[in-house]
């Protein structure tokens, strides 16, 4: 039995939090620096996929459905490794880990976010679409001005929940060498050999972030649900 040494965490705190968690500095890493753009770009792609899943034309609906079913049936680790392999091959040049990880998360998360968008759109009462059509709005006008604003409100709690999932999943970017919080702890551990303290510490950091976000999601759910 070895005595615990929490000093190891304290000594390496600036590295773990600045480089690993936030992403300032020379390693071009950062859990937050990866998670935030991933959810935003993933959501934009997800909106298109969600709308395409509900399209009346089968040749739009089918590819979107296949996209969603494919990425939901494959482990994220596999998708990250695929991107790591394919992107340099297609672009014929080396890409920093950040770009590879970002592409993997956007493409993977868009499948899940697309389902959230679809459920959000389907939660808007049919009468709203009929009323918009009766007023003479075109299909895309109805979608932009009537359906999406209402759907978005219904989606917010699920979006926060999905962001929590994504936030945790960014730890997998460390597999391809991206310097996120998990990788930073690994690097420190290679020098200090204090795995119990270090991994428990980053577990607590992740927990504080995800738990507060999940409380916020619950609060939003209560506040936004129709009385």
């Amino acid at each position: 039995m070895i005595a615990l040494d929490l000093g190891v965490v304290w000594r390496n705190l600036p590295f773990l939090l600045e480089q690993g968690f936030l992403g300032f500095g020379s390693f071009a890493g950062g859990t937050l620096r990866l998670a935030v753009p991933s959810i935003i770009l993933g959501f934009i792609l997800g909106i298109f996929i969600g709308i395409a899943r509900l399209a009346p034309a089968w040749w739009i609906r089918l590819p979107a459905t296949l996209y969603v079913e494919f990425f939901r049936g494959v482990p994220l680790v596999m998708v990250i490794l695929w991107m790591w392999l394919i992107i340099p091959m297609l672009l014929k040049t080396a890409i920093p880990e950040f770009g590879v990880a970002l592409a993997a998360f956007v493409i993977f998360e868009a499948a899940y976010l697309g389902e959230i968008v679809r459920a959000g759109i389907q939660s808007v009462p049919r009468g709203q679409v009929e009323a918009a059509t009766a007023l003479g709005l075109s299909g895309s006008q109805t979608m932009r001005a009537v359906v999406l604003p209402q759907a978005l409100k219904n989606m917010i709690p699920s979006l926060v929940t999905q962001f929590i999932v994504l936030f945790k999943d960014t730890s997998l970017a460390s597999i391809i060498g991206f310097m996120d919080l998990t990788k930073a702890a690994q690097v420190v551990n290679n020098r200090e050999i204090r795995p119990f303290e270090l991994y428990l510490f980053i577990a607590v950091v992740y927990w504080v972030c995800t738990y507060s976000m999940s409380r916020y999601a619950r609060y939003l759910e209560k506040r936004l649900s129709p009385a």
Partner: protein
Amino acid sequence: MKYKFDWSVLWTGESGAWLLSGLITTLELSALAWLLAVVLGVVSGAFRTVRFWPLRVLATSYVEFFRNVPLLVWMFFWYFGVPPLLPEGVREWLYGHGLEFWAGVFALGIYSGARFSEVLRSGIQAIPRTQIEASVASGLTTFQAYRYVILPVALRLIIPPATSESLNLLKNSSVALTISVAELTFQTRQIETYTAKAIEAFTAGTLIYLVLCVSLASVMSWVERRTAIPGLITAGKRRP
């Protein structure tokens, strides 16, 4: 750079044997972790709905802590962090009997158990309170009420969400490659390293995962229809 496809790498040399052993390890790891997760999930999910508050607090802390931290961190924690703290004898035994595999089972099982717990809790809470009251009124103890009335109904109600959690568990087992468990993704990378035919190797791995997930989902939807309780709204409804 022009990539030349050569699909024969998948069945020449040792690739086939590697894929097969990776698949078996993935299934073993997932099955053991699933058993652990179901036990933890059912017990803690039930605890979260009882009157006695210490049990509720215990189960809630377990769920909220383990569910909200990335699985990868748990893998490292159980593989690197815990063994040095174990007694000498246990540690020696683990190092001799595939420590990484057991660390993977623990990490995946305990993490997924916390997620199963949420599923079970919502299943139990979907049962009308009157059922519990009726079972207590007919003289059952709390344990008997859970054992004979609440759980049999709740376990049927949660088949669809539990299926998608089980599929998550199966897919998440790929994270064990980080602690060098020789599961499917690990073996896929091994083929890539030895043959330099990455696209072929990754395609094989990806297809195996897809086939596993699709077949598991269809088996479960069959189970759902077989065990459906006649008269309930969800009875016989297909998974969307």
